[in-house]
Each structure stands twice: as C-alpha cells, then as structure tokens.
C-alpha cells in the first residue's frame, strides 16, 4: 500500500514537472555562428542558464553559417517564418528594421548606458539590437621597426596626422627592407572594404552616405571625398601598399613574415601577432586625416523579429544575455572586445594591463558607425567597387561621381527608404 502511495506521489510530481515544461513557451532563435564551436558553446551556456532561470520561456537555437546567414534571414522573411530572436550585423540593421524584419527592443536605457557605441543598434531613435561584443581595427606595428627608423610611436591622445602617416610610409618604403610599407588587406574583399577603409574617408570629412541629407552626392564625391580618393590612389601609385591582386596568403602571414612593415588589421588577428613578436608588437591608433581619427564599429547584435509573437520573452532573453559575466566569457572565448567597462575588467585579454587592452580604448574613443541608413547595404558594395577601381588606376573624380550616382539611384528607387 505504501509503495502504491509512493508511486502515485511520484507520478503526480512527474506530471507537475511536465506541466511546468509544457508551460514554457518556445522562443526560436537564429544565430550566425554555425561551425564556430566556441561561440556555440558560449551561447549554449547562456541559453541553458536562461532556460533554467525562469519557467516562462525556453530558447531553442538554430545556428547558420555566417557566409549565408543574411540570405537565410531574407528568405525566411519572404516566407514569413522568421524566428523570435535573430542576430544581425550592425551596419545591416537599419535595412532590416526598415524592411520590417525587426521590432524595436523594449529595454531599459539604463541597462545599456555603459555599452560601447558600436554595440548598440539604433534606428530612427529606437534600440533594435544589442551586441555582446564589438571589433576594432588598429595599425599593427613592431616597436623595433619604428625605433630603427626613428619613427614616433603614436598614442590615442596623439595619433599620427595624415601627413605624418604618409611620411612614415614613405620612410619605411625607402628602407627597402619590406615588400610594402603598409598592408591594407586588399585581398579581403566584401564588407572589409567599407568597414576598414570607410573610416579613412570619414576621417577626411566625407562619408559613403550623408545620412541627414539621405544621399551620397556631396559626401562620397565632395571635396573631402576627393581628397581621400586622391590619397587612396597615391598609396598604390607609390607602391606603398599591395594592390587588389594581393595574395590571400600574404594577407594572412605577410606582416608576421616581415614582408610588410605595418598592417591594418582587426583585433581578431592580434593574438597570433603577439605570439610571433611578443613585447615588440604594437597596436597603433588610426591616423587623423583632419576630421579626427576613426575606426569602424558595430559587429553582430541580438534583436527581435517583427513577426515574433513572444516579444516579451525575446526581450527577456536579450536582457539576460547582456550580463557582464557573459560578455566577458564571450570575449575570453572568441577574442572580441567586451562592450562594457565592467565586462572588460572581467576579461582576460582586455582588462587593465591585458595584452589587448588597447583595443577597448580604441573602440571607445575612435569607433565610428558606418552610415546608419538602410541604403548602406548597397552603399557599402558600391564603395567596395569604387575603392578597388581607384586602386587600379581609375579616375578618382569619375569613379566617386559614378558611385555616388549609383547609391543615390538606389535610394530613389526605394522611395528614399522612408
């Protein structure tokens, strides 16, 4: 009799547990990190913690390869089966928000007040997404090379001016010790061009698109744009940098092998460089071409799809995920920049005195968003082609005029993206 009672009690308890499980509403989540085991593991930990921390929601993750993630989202939006939570690359966010793929987040501003500017995805004044990290570019250099050539080491407070940077490149090229003085990374096509080279244009005072005027004409091909274009072309004409025919392998190993004196690269490549050169390795700030030193900002961020029927749950998950301990764990795991001072202090590489500390400050002080407009998707691609054409000797004015026309035609064709 006693056993029967125990069995009934156990059955009731199991039933109650099933009831709790059933009461949890499923939140579907898509992520771009398929194939990245560390990211998957870190995100899996956050999801597991979230799922066990409350009884209302259960997040189910589906990972996609990054290379085709955007196309998958677009197709799902067409088919009407977007998940509740998506992640989005920062510069693309305005387009997805404008296209109606995403809804604004209902998150307390105070909770994101300490975030790096590049980690907050805003559009028309509303927050649409939050990133668990950011990325930053720097000039990779070796102290010994600079000292041997009597070159000043620039700092965040006193970066090289445009003229000074140009003179540095000329001096390093004149040594004859390197195949090229500076490696821009021309072999990396795609988003690298607007992300890495757009800030040079912005530092000259131009931009790919003037967001306030909603047009490229005048921003890309104005006086500042022309000055940038002429300088850009001169880098190739003077053989200071490898051209568009750069071998991908040289991009990966050229600086480490001593073929290039300096390199323009992101924080994701910093650890191998430190391993190769140790204390000799320097990460220098971007030069100031007149309008302030600038580097690209905004990486992947989490947001809510417009078709989600569980926006409260999706918001709850995102708020849960942006705790400092998770941001630090992501940084330690994948090497990207933690987006808050608190998480940076908790991280191994970006904490004060850490080997990559400089990148947090670079991101904090030099990061500049790519043009925050739905037109950026086309603008970025047009800019990429223009940069390659100018590098290959095309007329600067004609190329920039044509690029501006193309971007403005897209804006017009889309009704101004209103």
């Amino acid at each position, binding site marked *: 009799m006693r056993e029967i009672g125990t069995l009934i009690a156990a059955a009731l308890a199991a039933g109650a547990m099933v009831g709790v499980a059933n009461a949890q509403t499923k939140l579907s989540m898509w992520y771009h990190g398929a194939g990245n085991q560390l990211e998957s593991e870190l995100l899996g930990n956050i999801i597991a913690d979230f799922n066990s921390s409350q009884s209302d929601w259960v997040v189910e993750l589906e990972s996609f390869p990054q290379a085709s993630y955007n*196309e998958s989202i677009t*197709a799902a939006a067409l088919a009407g089966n977007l998940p509740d939570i998506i992640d989005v690359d920062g510069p693309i966010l305005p387009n997805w928000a404008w296209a109606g793929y995403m809804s604004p987040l209902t998150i307390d501003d105070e909770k994101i007040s300490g975030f790096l500017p590049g980690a907050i995805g805003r559009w028309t004044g509303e927050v649409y997404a939050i990133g668990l990290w950011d990325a930053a570019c720097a000039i990779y250099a070796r102290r010994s090379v600079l000292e041997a050539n009597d070159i000043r080491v620039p700092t965040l407070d006193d970066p090289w001016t445009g003229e000074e940077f140009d003179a540095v490149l000329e001096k390093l090229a004149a040594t004859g010790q390197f195949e090229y003085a500076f490696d821009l990374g021309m072999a990396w096509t795609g988003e690298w061009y607007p992300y890495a080279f757009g800030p040079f244009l912005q530092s000259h005072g131009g931009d790919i698109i003037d967001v306030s005027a909603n047009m490229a004409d005048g921003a890309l091909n104005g006086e500042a744009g022309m000055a940038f274009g002429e300088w850009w072309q001169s880098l190739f004409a003077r053989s200071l940098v490898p051209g568009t025919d750069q071998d991908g392998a040289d991009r990966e190993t050229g600086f480490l092998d001593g073929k290039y004196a300096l390199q323009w690269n992101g924080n994701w490549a910093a650890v191998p460089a430190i391993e190769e050169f140790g204390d000799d390795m320097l990460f220098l700030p971007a030069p100031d071409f007149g309008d302030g030193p600038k580097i690209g900002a905004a990486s992947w961020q989490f947001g809510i799809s417009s078709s989600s029927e569980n926006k409260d749950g999706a918001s709850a998950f995102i708020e849960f995920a942006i705790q400092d301990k998770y941001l630090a764990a992501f940084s330690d795991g994948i090497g990207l920049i933690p987006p808050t001072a608190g998480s940076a202090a908790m991280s191994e590489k970006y904490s004060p005195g850490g080997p990559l500390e400089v990148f947090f400050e670079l991101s904090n002080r030099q990061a500049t968003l790519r043009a925050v407009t739905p037109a950026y998707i086309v603008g970025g691609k047009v800019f990429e082609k223009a940069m390659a054409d100018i590098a290959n000797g095309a007329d600067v004015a004609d190329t920039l005029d044509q690029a501006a026309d193309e971007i403005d035609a897209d804006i017009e064709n889309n009704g101004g993206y209103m």
Partner: protein
Amino acid sequence: MPAQRLAKLSLDYLLLAWIALVFVFPVVFMVMSSFKSDLQLLRDSASLRAFLPVGDLSFDNYAKAFQRAPIGLFILNSVFITAVTVCVSLLLASLAAFSFVFLQWVGRSVLMAAVLATFIVPFETIAVPLLLIVNNLPWIGLDGFKTSWLNSYQVQIVPFIADALTIFLFVQYFKDLPKELVEAARIDGATWFQVYRRVVMPLSGPVLATAAILKFLMMYNNQLLWPIMVVQEESYRPVMLGLQYFFQLNTAWGEIMAYLTIITVPVLAFYLVLQKAFIASIASTGIKG
C-alpha cells in the same frame, strides 16, 4: 624516321603530361594541404612545397573538421538528395525524350522548344517565386501532415528533377538510335512502354551514364542558393552548405581542405562506378560497329 617519331611522341607525351598536371595539381594541393597547419599551408602556397608532403604533417585538420561540422550527416543528406534526384530525373527525362522522339503528337515541337528555352532562365530568377510556392505546399510524411515544404528533403529534390539539359541529352541520343529497332518491336506487338523499357533503354547506357554524371555533379556540387533559402534546420543541410561552416573570422584553411577531401570521395566513387557502367554499356549494345 624513328628519331623524328620519337621526338614527336615525346612532345605529345610532354603536352599530355602537362595537361594532366593542370587537372591533377589542384587535387594534389587540396589533399596535401589537408595535412598541414594553416600557417604552413599559407606559407607553402607560394612555392612547389604546396604540392608536396613536407613539413609537419598530421590528421589534425580532419579531426577538427569533424568536430566543427556534422560531416557524416551532410554527406548522407547530399548523397540521398542527389541519388533520388538523379534516379527520378533519369526516368522522367528519358520518358519525356522518348515521347518527343518516337511518339507523334500535336505540339511536341513547340513543347520541345519551350523546354529548351528554359536553358536561358537562370535559377536565381525563379528562386523567390519557387520559395513562395514550396512554402505553401502541403506534405504528408512520416512525421505527419505539414503545410510547408521548408526544412525537408523533398524541397531539395522535386524542383530539380526535370531539367532541359537532361531531356536534351536523351533526345539527341534517341534520335541517333536505329528507327528499325523500334519499328520491329512495334510490329512484333510491343506497347510503347515495352519499346521504351525493353528496346530503347537497354541501348541507352552511354547517355544514362553521361546524364547521371552531369546531374550528380550539378546536384552535389552546386547546391547552395536553394538550401540557403529553404533549409533552416541543420539536419537537412547538404555538403556545400556545410562548407560554409569553415569560413569564420579566421578562416580554417587546413580544415577546409580536409573537408573538401572528404566530400570529394563520394564524387570520385560515383564517377568510377559509372565509368565501368559506361564501358560495359558500350560493349554490350547491338549498335556498335
């Protein structure tokens, strides 16, 4: 002149060897690189070392590749999708071609022209409408009734069963078959289907092998845009989509080479099997010589 002949023969062989090397080198590069670390692979790529088993060689890339992606699942998916598509496609395309060549019916020329006209329509132009169609198609499978074909095998198979190239290959081949064989079978009382099954298809080994190889390569190698659009669950992804798992911020080139080496095995196996069938079919047909 023996000396002249020898020189000519040597030149011929040199040329042939050079052409062979052009085709073999990428495969050798792929296999050799799959045993090297990323850094060594990139450094070797600028020299002949890229084609040689030199430096620190290991199976690390293979182990890591299997950890990074469910390679076995992807290969099974691709082989299943490809095998079903190839088999059904060969059946339907040969039936269609038989009808175009041997049956007399009104409008066949127009329809054949329409089929050939689809050559000029790139898949990208029909991808979106096709997505909207398959998204609303019902399906009853082992897991019950579904209102959409997304995330399934059939969505990666059915749209690619019929294609103009395969039909065209069969039509051209059937046109060259001796009409007397078909006429004799008909006089002997064979139905059209019996003619197709017992007379025409047994003579069609070469075109079956050719069409199968082309279709196999098309399905196995070129599956990218469509799966990106219609497959959101990992359990249905094919090998080409799996390749994208390896393109991260720091691309794992060694693992990519290991992955490519692994997924090349089914292609080589299929080709070798059909190569035998191809030769056997030539030898056994009654129209040879």
